[in-house]
């Protein structure tokens, strides 16, 4: 279980978040641009420090301002999929996925077996030698997921994992993503702008407004938040007459 209770002064407002995510639960974090969603993920991942508070993962304290403890990002064992995927451009697909195992000093044989398993499961084995920058958007997303999952993380953080894909590919990926995450059996936080992501992927959702949790609820409730998210609703209504058979889901 992930427990977060942190405060951080940002430029225009204070980020004050208190929430918990159970094992195998997918929490969707929704909100406008600049409301602190990515900052929250970075704080949990150890890439930024909060001003005060406490973060615990499976009972392990990874940050506590009172005890002055902060586990560095590299020791937190958190799988993080960045919005841009951040695949290392000078490495092949294989080396990108193997990176987390190499930093953990796995043997070459172990790395070979594990990477093959994950790449085959993601349908990427055939393109293992391709440079990570030369593959399609959907493949990049799956490489980023495989890279985050292969280290067997204790927590998954996904920052708008579908935003770099076209609308048709997003629809295909939602179900796949939900199944993959549930199979990992770890807590997961996904940041998104899109209410369709919330409805199709999430178990629970939080609406973040200017650094504070404005609304909480189960994923099915999010449609009633439409009035709180005018931008999301607007973009949704523009996409509404789509041909992806998703109108019912949204």
């Amino acid at each position, binding site marked *: 279980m992930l427990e977060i209770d942190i405060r951080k002064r940002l430029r225009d407002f204070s980020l004050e978040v208190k929430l918990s995510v159970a094992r195998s639960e997918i929490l969707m974090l929704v909100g406008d641009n600049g409301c602190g969603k990515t900052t929250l993920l*970075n704080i949990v991942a150890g890439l930024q420090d909060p001003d005060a508070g406490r973060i615990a993962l499976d009972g392990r304290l990874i940050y506590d301002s009172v005890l002055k403890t902060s586990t560095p990002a*590299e020791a937190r064992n958190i799988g*993080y999929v*960045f919005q*841009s995927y*951040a695949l290392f*451009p000078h490495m092949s697909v294989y080396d990108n996925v193997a990176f987390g195992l190499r*930093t953990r000093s796995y043997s070459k044989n172990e790395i070979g077996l594990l990477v093959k398993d994950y790449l085959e499961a993601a349908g990427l084995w055939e393109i293992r030698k391709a440079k990570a920058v030369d593959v399609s958007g959907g493949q990049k997303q799956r490489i980023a997921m495989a890279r*985050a999952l292969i280290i067997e993380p204790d927590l998954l953080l996904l920052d708008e994992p579908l935003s770099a894909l076209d609308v048709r590919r997003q629809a295909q990926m939602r179900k796949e993503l939900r199944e993959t995450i549930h199979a990992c059996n770890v807590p997961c936080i996904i940041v998104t702008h899109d209410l369709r992501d919330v409805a199709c992927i999430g178990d629970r959702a939080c609406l973040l407004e200017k650094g504070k949790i404005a609304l909480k609820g189960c994923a099915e409730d999010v449609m009633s938040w439409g009035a709180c998210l005018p931008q999301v609703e607007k973009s949704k209504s523009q996409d509404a007459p789509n041909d992806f058979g998703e109108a019912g889901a949204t």
Partner: protein
Amino acid sequence: MASNQADIGPFGERSLTELVNQEHEIIGIPSRTREMALKAGLALMLMLAMAFIALPVVALFLKSPLDTTLRSLHDPVVIDALRLSLTTSTITTITVVIMGTPIAYVSARFQYFGKELADSLIDLPVIMPPAVAGIALLVAFGRMGIVGHYLNGLGISIAFTTLAVIMAQVFVSSPFYIRQARTSFEDVDMAFENAARTLGASRVYTFFHVIIPIAMNGLISGAIMAFARSLGEFGATIMFAGNFQGRTQTMPLAIYTAMQGDLDVSLCLAIILVAFSFMVIFLVKTLTRRRVHKNAGN
């Protein structure tokens, strides 16, 4: 108005001839003549500029026939200068890369007290006249210099040695590498560093396995520029290291010395330096173009 409407097709399209005629009416013949004159003027300016740069280079080759150049290659002055220049420039480049890479990274990634001052200090040798750099080095590390005074007491003498040549070259060429490396590090997206760290890589591992390889083309370009600057260094070297054949007389110094005696030797060395300069420009351009293509691919 009526005729205009008649020329518009059933779907609102206009004929190509109509559009061309309309354009001629708008531009008019005098405008076209002006445009051509402008183009001719620009072409002339370009040709003059190219001639201004190319003529001295061509003159070098014309004034020094190939057989004379080849014969001069066996001259001890040429051999010593060439060997010394290549050795010192290589050592300088390695020193600048080892010393400059962490400095460039810190400058690109971190904010600290006095950063502006430190960055200005790093860039200073670019605008400082080389002769001034030579005097500055002399008063710092010369026998009577503020540091050299103590070193001399320990029996260490730097000025007028090969080490002084290297120090002068490092002083003037380091900004060329550090500036380029700083820009290359700034271009590396922070997301790559963050991704590496969440995957369990320490900062040092991330630096060597992620940041350096991504910034590599820029770093190589910078190193080549520093090497070229070292190879052509004259002012600071002659002031701080003197002009002793085989010890401190690099190629530019040998050209200067030979000019007063054997012009063939001078021309031979000049041609070698021109060839090196061409190679450097070609390498930098190739690497920069490859990097642009790679980024475009992203």
